[in-house]
């Protein structure tokens, strides 16, 4: 499989605390990767480093063979790295459609009628078309999660990182978001999914990476990862 993202020995320290310790990982084009681990294991820190929201203390990140370690998040977005946030961060003073026009304006370089049409197409795909003109601070939790994914899609990503997009959602809503992610993957977008809902991760991922205390303790197909004694210990204790 052709390599899209390559992480080489990423370490992230917060003062004396090491959140990530020499993490190395590769993700192939079109892959569906699940990233799991107990709370505080470094999952969000890792994706913050990938998206550029945080600069790692050590290590390098390559995207499509290009070293992006020193690049800011907005440049990485232009290169095709998009993400959603664990706690949704909508542009709350804007409507849902305007939220999508921000990436169009800055990544595609225009927010004209053509981009507006593309944004509406994305919203249609996400089942949010009727909410296009609604103020984003009036959306329900599941709608917010979908809008975050829609806004990430407006970046026209090659890699989409979904950070707990299903947290706090009911069963049917989890299925809705999962269907959206499968749909996006079928369009050729590589997806890294961080999730605590194991059923969803197991169904979605082709490969699962498990983090614990800032280190990768397992990297394999889902069936093997769940049986791995280190993974079981990390989640359930000795």
């Amino acid at each position: 499989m052709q390599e899209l993202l390559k992480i080489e020995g990423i370490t992230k320290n917060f003062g004396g605390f090491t959140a990530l310790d020499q993490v190395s990982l590769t993700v192939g084009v079109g892959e569906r990767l699940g990233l799991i681990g107990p709370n505080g294991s470094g999952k969000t820190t890792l994706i913050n480093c990938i998206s550029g929201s945080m600069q790692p203390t050590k290590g390098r990140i390559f995207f499509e063979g290009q070293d992006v370690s020193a690049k800011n998040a907005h440049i990485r977005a232009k290169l095709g790295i998009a993400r959603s946030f664990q706690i949704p961060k909508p542009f709350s003073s804007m409507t849902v459609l305007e939220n999508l026009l921000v990436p169009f304006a800055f990544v595609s370089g225009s927010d004209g009628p053509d981009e507006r049409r593309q944004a509406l197409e994305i919203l249609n795909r996400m089942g949010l078309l009727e909410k296009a003109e609604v103020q984003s601070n009036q959306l329900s939790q599941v709608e917010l999660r979908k809008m975050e994914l829609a806004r990430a899609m407006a970046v026209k990503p090659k890699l989409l990182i979904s950070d707990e997009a299903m947290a706090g959602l009911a069963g049917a809503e989890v299925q809705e978001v999962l269907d959206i992610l499968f749909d996006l993957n079928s369009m050729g977008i590589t997806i890294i999914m961080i999730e605590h809902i194991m059923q969803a991760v197991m169904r979605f991922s082709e490969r699962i990476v498990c983090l614990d205390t800032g280190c990768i303790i397992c990297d394999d197909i889902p069936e093997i990862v769940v049986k791995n004694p280190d993974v079981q210990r990390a989640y359930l204790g000795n």
Partner: protein
Amino acid sequence: MQSWKFFASCLVVLLASLALCLSGVNEYVFYAGFVILQFIVLATAWNILGGYAGYVNFGVPAFLAVGAYTAVVLFKFMGASLSMQIVCGGILAGLLGLGVGLLTLKLRGIFFSIATVAVVFILETCVMNWPYVGGATGLQLTRPSGLLLFPSYNRMLFFVMAVLAVGSITIARYIQTSFLGRGLRALRDSEEAAECSGVPTLKIKLIACTVSGALMGMAGAPMPMYMSYIEPTSTFNLSYSISALGMPIIGGTAHWLGPLIGALLLGGVQQVVSVTISNELNVLVVGVILVLFVVLAPEGILGLIKKCKNSSK
């Protein structure tokens, strides 16, 4: 508002203020009008950073004073013309804005605001200890004789400030409707999400800091000639910050019209109260109106209008 309507309105306002200057209206109108127009520039400039981007700048007097003292230095050193004083005051205050932006990049919320207050005290201390510009006691200035076609210097300054007000509103409107405005709004709502959506947050923040600072400096440059005097305590007065912040909050921070409405309303009320009741009371008036708006109409007059329109639908 469509562009042609906006520019036609600007032209009408400028022609009307020119006609007013050439008419036989009482001189006090220009004296008071200058202050209101200056507040339109300050409030509009403040809103570019504070309203659009959500970075609350309490350092308004610092930028205003950089403009004013640049004008004083240029006038004293080489007898520079008013236009040169304004341009240079704007450039230096813009550079100060860029510097403050660069130094306070990582500061957000209240920390950014405190840092901007610090700039006021630092610059005030520098000016207090600079004898060339009069130090703490201030400096008396004699107005030059050049009046162009205007009957008095006050009338000319009124027209100059009207041009600056129209100019700053045009810039604020352009920023609001351009990519920059969309980026600044995104940045205000969530800096991290904006950055991950491709918005170069650092760059647009610095542009906003520079433009906002430059406009404040330009508003300050004609001040020494308006007063024929300059001294640091009143120039660096933090009440400028309160007014420049209060006016957009009263008018509405989301739109370029907000600071204009707020400055006309608050500035007008202040002038009336100063003349009819007392000069001290006008500070109280700002406070009371501000509290009322924050409690009853947090999105300002424009927000109220929008709410009324929505509820009538």
